[in-house]
């Protein structure tokens, strides 16, 4: 049997400034959580570059959102490594690492796929991973997610709509987010 809510998002670890954090540390803002690792050759650099452009395009709305980059490779991704990496690739993104157990718990909570694949040497391994971004609301609840295959304009528009909805709903408390319109027509 399955739970009604597919994701029960929770995590704890160390952010790239060396501070101990949990999901509760970010209450009050939307969180955009995605998983990766700094040795990633293609997916993460692409995702971070795209996210940086999207955050820029969001303008002031970006202040409603905090992006979190959770490593699936805590053995190599120390806080310092992540900080250096993100300063270059995603300066508006906070990196999160931790113990192997903490990272595995976070992966499990977010239903993330990641597996270590041997490379040419012991240190030169790869970690193919789920490349979707999870949007949590300011109360820390799963709201939706975006796949890596989504186009940049779709991600931007999706975030705009969802962040605007928050703004709209907060100003109009009697309203609720409407359900998907059940119409088959194209």
């Amino acid at each position, binding site marked *: 049997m399955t739970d009604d809510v597919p994701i029960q998002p929770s995590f704890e670890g160390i952010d790239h400034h060396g501070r101990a954090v949990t999901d509760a540390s970010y209450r009050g803002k939307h969180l955009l959580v995605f998983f990766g690792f700094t040795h990633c050759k293609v997916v993460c650099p692409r995702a971070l570059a795209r996210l940086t452009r999207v955050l820029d395009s969001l303008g002031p709305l970006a202040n409603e959102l905090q992006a979190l980059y959770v490593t699936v490779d805590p053995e190599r991704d120390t806080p310092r490594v992540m900080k250096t990496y993100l300063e270059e690739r995603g300066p508006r993104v906070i990196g999160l690492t931790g113990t192997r157990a903490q990272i595995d718990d976070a992966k499990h909570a977010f239903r*993330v796929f990641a597996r270590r694949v041997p490379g040419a040497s012991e240190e030169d391994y790869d970690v193919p*991973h*789920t490349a979707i971004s999870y949007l949590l609301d300011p109360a820390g609840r799963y709201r939706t997610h975006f796949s890596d295959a989504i186009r940049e304009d779709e991600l931007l528009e999706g975030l705009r709509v969802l962040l605007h909805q928050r703004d709209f709903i907060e100003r109009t408390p009697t309203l609720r987010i409407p359900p998907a319109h059940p119409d088959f027509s194209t």
Partner: protein
Amino acid sequence: MLTPEQIGHLRHFDNLSRQRPNDWSLMQGKGIGQDDFGGYRFQLAYMAYALALTHAHRLPAAPGVFKGTFERLIEKMLSPEVWMYWRDTSRGGAVFNAHLVDQLKEEWDPVVRDNIMYSAYVQSMALLYHYLFDDDRYTQPGALTFAHWSFFWGGAERRFVYDENSLNEHIYWQMVENGYVGVACEPNCIFQICNQPAILGFRLHDLIHGGTRASEVTRAYEQAWQQFGRLDANGHYNMMLLQDGRTVVPNAQRMPWVDAWCGTLINMWNRDFVRAHYPRQVSELLQPGEAGALSVHVNERPETPGPRVVADSCDFGWVAAWASEMGDADTLSGLFTHADRYMAPSWRDGGLYYPRNDAELNGAGHRTIMEPLTGNVLLGYARLNVPDGLWRLYNKPWSRARFHEPALVDIDVDIDVYEATYDAKAGRLRFAIRRRADHNANGRVVVRNLGAASRWSVDGGDAVVANEHGTSSIGRGVQVSRDGADFVLHAPAGAELRTLVVEP
């Protein structure tokens, strides 16, 4: 207008759906334990798919032909006899999984882990039903419940409660957790084929409930498979991926079912790819026969340690289904020429099927083997499908407006419907029916959404239904009466095929 053979296949599907609980007559294959491709679940699912294609493309104004059959197929799909194999198969003890045998235990819930070869069919059948008939019964809590209790096994009843939405969500998140490469069938074995029905289910869920899961999954699935390749070194579809070792198992034996099943289903969302490879792939699978007949090469199953695996391959049926989806009329015609000549087409209670035959070849060397999935279902599927039938179902969704259009919504079991279309521009409903003598009922057809007054014609002879409360004869013995907003039509006993047209 459907052909008598097409009507015969629909009738056979309906006959099988009406068999008593646990009566699987004509459906038992060679394999034991329901864990091979001849299993009941595949027969039930592809009957449902064939019904969906026929309703969508051939009899759009006759939901009543299909709805009851669909419900009975889903009910059978949920019966323990169909899914109990999973308790054993979930152990993952196959030879290539020897290293996992101590890690996996028997699992009674047939959809909670792996087993996409069952779960995706339940998901997609329920969603097809909702989509085609605008009936949300499988969204109700517990509407898709898997329950089993054995007096002699003992203990409490095993009961696993799902519905259309929770099952869809569960399968989707399994996809995500696996990096979109797919969900395993048997533990550790991710077949390309068996993940396609889940994609159909996602698409239908998007159409019904909103969302973009199907496009998300197909895009990510493409990316995930890029590292493995969809085709093997010989240009045939890779069969599966061993999940833990990330090892692709090619179709080294060029088994026709691998290509044909993959091609049939993947066409719905990646038509260009399938069509680009079809001519060469199918040409390597076909075997020309005499006087226009075409058969399918017989390839040996790969050797595995231990006793020989006894299982249905259904090669012939899958190639026919594939040719139908590709609109390859010549190949389809050749295959049916062969089937009708050498594979003993049979009629039972008005239903057409090809009975099981375990002999690979006859004395003259013609292929005669017939598995229940092919004989009961796939050849019927191929006859009923239209070119790009699945592609159209996936890519050309119906408007909800159709649920308000005139349609045959309730049809007695002794009525065959050969034609049923509604021309919205002209406001004209056209249908053709025949009353059968071999089924016992009242020859009744309920027509809905016709409005207050309409002109009826039967085989060209006109009659106006003036009496809205009484019964009118509208010619050739056909009677029409009103039942609330519905028109109820009675075809006389022994009535031959009649074409009726109703206009404003």
